[in-house]
């Protein structure tokens, strides 16, 4: 299972406040994980990436294994620790203070 953590706003939206566990077929890529996430929770379509272009929204980042994967090719295979379920894939809202 692929472990996914989404930001608080999206947890509220889907009414799921823990880690999300998804079945994702090979190859486990960023795009495949997001596809599976949106299949499980259709309301998330458009909140993480544009519905038409599938481009990451500007204030969204993707982290895993202490690395920023935001600018990686969406079709690239994710780190082994994510693929094997040892580490979660984080969808992160960019920080803003005030």
């Amino acid at each position, binding site marked *: 299972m692929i472990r996914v953590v989404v*930001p*608080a*706003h*999206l947890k*509220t*939206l889907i009414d799921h406040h823990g880690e999300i566990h998804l079945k994702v077929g090979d190859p486990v890529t960023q795009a495949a994980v997001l596809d599976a996430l949106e299949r499980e929770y259709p*309301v998330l379509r*458009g*909140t*993480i990436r544009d*519905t038409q272009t599938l481009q990451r*929204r500007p*204030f*969204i980042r993707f982290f895993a294994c202490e690395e920023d994967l935001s600018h990686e090719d969406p079709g690239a295979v994710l780190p082994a620790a994510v693929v094997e379920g040892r580490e979660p894939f984080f969808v992160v*809202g*960019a920080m803003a203070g005030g």
Partner: protein
Amino acid sequence: MSGVRVLVGTRKGAFILTSDGKRDKWDVVGPIFGGWEIFHVKGSPVDPNRIFASQSTSWFGQLIQRSDDGGKSWAPVGKEFVYDGTPGTHQWYDGTPHPWEFARVWHLEPSLSDPDVVLAGVEDAALFRSSDAGESWSELSGLRGHGSGPSWQPGAGGMCLHTILVSPADPGRIFVAISSAGAFRTDDGGATWRPINKGLHSEGIPDGDAEVGHCVHRLALHPSRPDVLFMQKHWDVMRSDDAGDNWVEVSGNLPSDFGFCIDVHAHEPETVFVVPILSDSEHYPPEGKLRVYRSKTGGNEWEPLTKGLPQKDCYVDVLRDAMAVDSLDSCGVYFGTTGGQVYASADSGDSWAPIVSNLPAVLSVEVQTLA
């Protein structure tokens, strides 16, 4: 027993405030959609249990929520606002052409006759319509396409279509207002549009009397006289007696004619409410006194309403969509502030009391009068 339901949109969620007809004790529910910006919440006049909410953040984009049980439960509906055809460009801040880009829904206007029909005013300025209770949206593109669209330019708050008024006498007649393009009217249900800004004068644009380019903040009308319009402009309070064809200034003795909100008494078509704000650079009331001004003469002669409102050290703003009236026998008036207060008057503005005092900044206030 009759009652009211006040729908409040804030920077960090929605709140629903309910009371019986006395309007002296209130139940407060919220935050609903906590953490999300709720620009507007409005109920259907046909089916009060049907309520629409515009939910967004800059991070996660736009959603539309709908309740069919008076706000007890909500479900997301359609959120695809796609401009019709090739969107084209409008003017950017530096005067260069800029592609039309959807940012958010500012205002939702449910139909006066069909609970499944709702209009949405969006940024970048355009008008969308749903005929399936918000499940899908299509643009009434005649507005942007009527000719002046490419010359529209955003104000500091974005180029938003923030006001939608459907004539109670003619569902084909719709008035909209756009910051900072001006007011527009259709008489054929949205197919064709024309600017209705004759008589407006704005010092912040090169040609102060131009056909478009005026920063209209809000329009209001009384259902019994749908051709009489009132306007709070960036500066100036205006009135039209011919459905917007011509406007005259009715600021009269207001301490400042800058402001955002304006509304009309439910039973007295010549009684109008505004909240003067000191200036466009100082978004707070003159003298630190929060005063609603009421005209019982359709403008020009205004009286301050202060009982129950803070009269010193008050530096909040009242935004364009943050005032509403109920239609109980003794008309209730409501407004919300950027300081998180929602004030109510059950006596047409003579006296006020806060319903709540510490909400997030209030973006919108609507009220439903319940049988």
